[in-house]
Structure formats: C-alpha cells, structure tokens
C-alpha cells in the first residue's frame, strides 16, 4: 500500500514537473464547431477510430508528425511514442483500413488550416492560439 502511494506521489511529481517544463498543448477546432470532446474522444479521433463529430459531420484530423508538441500530444493523449504511433499507422495505411491525419509542420500552418475548415481538428502549442480557432481542450 505504502509502495503504491510512494509510486503515485512519484508519478504525480513527474507529471507536474514535466508539465511545468513542457509547453501546454491546445486542441483546436473551427470557431463554429460546437462539439464537446473529452480526452477519450480526442484520442479516438486522432487514432482514426471515430470519424464523425457528434453532429454527424465528417472529421478531418490534422497532426504534426514530429517535434516537442507532437511528442507531448502523442504521449499524453494517444499514450504512444512516435515509433508506436508510426507502427500503428503503418498497419492501417498499408492494408487500406485507415487514413492517418493530414500532417503539417508548424503551429502557424496548423492554426491556418483549422481556421479555414469547419471539420478540422488539430493541436498546437497554447502560445500559438489566436482568435481564428477555438480551444476545446488543453493538456
């Protein structure tokens, strides 16, 4: 019991320390998007398991393949490192059973893309968010 407690304290210390050090990730959608999405829904969307928003429109997820924000999002929300995620998508892409998110390479491109289409969802460093998009979750 005590061991578990110590482990839990250790875990939270690590989590809090790392979130202090690392930037905050903001999940963004078009301002007109009224969807309420919890972490599990966001995870399912970015793994291609959910393809429709609650209102029935088709989701177009946007992601970054590498970089600190992508690593943080993959680890915290998708619970996979970049290699695991690459293997996950390889499996689906080369069998024609899934389509990975569309990739962009910068926060600016991500904000621009999400601001430009009602069905897009993406993630950026919180510091890069502006009025053109809506933040629905932060990690």
């Amino acid at each position, binding site marked *: 019991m005590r061991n578990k407690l110590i482990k839990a304290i250790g875990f939270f210390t690590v989590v809090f320390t790392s979130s202090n050090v690392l930037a905050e990730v903001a999940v963004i959608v078009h301002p007109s998007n009224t969807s309420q999405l919890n972490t599990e829904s966001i995870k399912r969307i970015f793994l291609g*398991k959910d*393809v*429709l928003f609650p209102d029935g429109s*088709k989701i177009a997820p946007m992601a970054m*393949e*590498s970089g600190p924000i992508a690593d943080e999002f993959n680890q915290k929300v998708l619970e996979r*490192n*970049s*290699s695991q*995620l*690459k*293997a996950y998508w*390889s*499996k689906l*892409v*080369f*069998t*024609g*059973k899934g389509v990975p998110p569309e990739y962009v390479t910068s926060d600016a491109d991500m904000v621009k893309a999400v601001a430009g289409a009602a069905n897009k969802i993406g993630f950026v460093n919180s510091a890069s968010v502006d009025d053109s998009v809506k933040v629905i979750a932060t990690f």
Partner: protein
Amino acid sequence: MNTFKKSLSKATCLIAALGFVASASAEVKLSGFASFVGGKFSEDSYSYLEYDNDFSFSPDTVLGIQLGADLADDIKVTAQLISKGLNDYDVEVELAYLTYSVNPFWDVRVGRLRTPLFYYSDFLDVGYAYPWIRPPSVTYRVDAASFDGMDMLYRTRLGGWDSTFQLVYGADEEENVESNGLYGLTMTFNRDWLTFRLGYISSEVTVFSEELVPIFDGIRAAGFGDVADDFDPGQPRRSRYLAAAMIVDYNDWLVNMEYTQVGWDKSSIFLHDSAWFAMVGRRFGDYTVHLTYSTQEDDPDFEDNTIPLSGVPAGIATLGNVLNAIISNEQQDSLTLGVRYDVAGGVALKAEVTRYSLDIAEPLFPGQQSNVDDGTLFNIGLDIVF
C-alpha cells in the same frame, strides 16, 4: 470461372492504370516500406526459409511502394508495388484495388487484395509494423498472399468494442495453384489493449504438379481410381481454413497468440494440419524483447489410402507405399528470441535467433523412418516506413 478471373485480372490492371491516370488530376499519395534482412542457417545439408550455411540477404529483403489517389469524395484507388529478394527483385503489383466508401463505416473494395488468412497477413510485408523479422513461419505456412475479387469492410462499435467485419469473395491463379470460389469472413474486436480476431476462409483449390501426375495415373491404371481422385491435388478440392488470434499490448507487455487449422472436403497429401504460436514481449523504452514458440502438426489421411500393401502384386503394394510416402506427416517447432530497437520514428533495427526442428507427426506409415532435422537461424534486419 476462368473468364471471371481473367476479367478480374483485367480489372486489376485497369485499376492500376486508373491510379496513374488519376495522378494527372488528383493528388497521389506515396508511401512505402522496406526491410533489409540478412541471415544464416546453422546447417549445411538442408536449408530453412531459403537460408543455408552461407550468409544471405535475399530471402526476407523486401521493398514496397504504395500509391493512393482520391478519384472522388467516396472513391479512391490504391496500388502496391513490391520487389522481393525471393523473386530476384522483380517488381510485382501485389495489391491494386478501388475503394468505394458507401458511408464512413462501410467500404467496398474491388481488385487485387490481401487474402486475410492470419492476423498479420494484411501487412506481412511491412516488417516495421510487427516486432519480429517475420511472423512465426511455422504457423504462417499458408502461401496465398493475395487474390482477385472483392471485399466489404464494416466498422462499428459493439458494447465498447471497436469491431471490424470483412467479407471476401474472389479467386486466385498462381503458377501451380488455382483457387476458385474463394469466400471468407473475418471479425476483429478491439478494446484498449486487447484485440481478438476470428477468421474463416474457404476456396476450391487445384494444384498442378508434374511430379504427381505419373503417380496418380499409375494408381488409376491399377484400378484404384477412387483413391486417386480422393488424394490427387490436381482434382479440385475445397479447403476450410479457421483462424483465431488474441493480441495484448498492456503496459509495455505484449502477448500474441494465434491458432489456425486447415481441413479439406477430400483426403489431402498436404496442408491438412493445425498450427499455433504464442509470443511474449516486453518494451523497455526504445527496445522490445520477445520470445515466441510456434508449432505445426499434420493430420495425415493414411487411413483413406485403401491400396493393399500385402497379398497383392508387388507393383500395387509399391503404389500404396508411394502414396503413403507423399502424404505429409510432419511436425515442426520453432523457438525465437529477438530484439527490436526503434532507432527513430519509421526506422527499426532487429536481431533474432530461431531454433527450428522438423519431426514426424504420428502415425508413421508402414516402414517410415523417423528422421529429425533441426538447426538455428540467425537474422539481423533494418525496417523502414516512409
């Protein structure tokens, strides 16, 4: 049936061509994978998985390019070109199909598709997507990678389980094997760290073998036409293939198990068997260590060989013995210890040692020698996806 297949092959070419035409108007997505694998088998007198005592790079080395283009919102074409060391690096169109998305949950695909025999069949050539250099070959023994035809994919969520149902129908024609009226159903259920897969496939198989023709002609000439028809793989026979798999990926622990079974509506001289494997692996950061046991055992149909072996002219007894000798009754085991190192996203290094042994499955036919072959296979490999 032949006409049906030929028109399907034409359809396949057409779809491939369409893909390239589409490149003019639609955006073509290019992705690819490659595995560079070297290996050496411990024995001189026989080889295993095409490896012998000399270090070789060809048996498992593969390069693949996938082209995909959206022709419309709900229609896309996909083609996969593959070059394998095993085929002298000839470039072959392994997959070429048109996908029509009825809605976000229903896909209908027509063309050349993967035969969904095993859990890893769909991405057998994509080494990066699994921990080994290759899935355990003692279990992955059925060599029918692709077929011409169609499938329907239906995705849904059943009580928290992400479920995929796949119906396939088609045919396949290889150099020595023809497969007609192929149909099957696979079901995959996934929830968090747990995945189950069930599959059933049946097809009417005809095998053309010049070595077998004189044997079965002899048996027919001796008046045992019914026995010849029962065993001769040159006579079409329907296969029944069953597969069940469980895949676990929990807190860096990996457990994979797969059981498969092949049966026929007639007696068979080969591939009447069952096989399974179990793998336990553990991820340590960028390293994955895994141990796999795999076994296969034939279920020989000696009792259906009713050619008398005694009290008949020597020629007839010889035919009976020859038939017994070509009925496969093997038993194979393999134990593989391997490590995978994820160098970077899309690049992995692998090393593996496989202890393989070939034995005799009971019963022995009269006079059969129980010979045991075994050996150790060493492999190193580099897998990439892009």
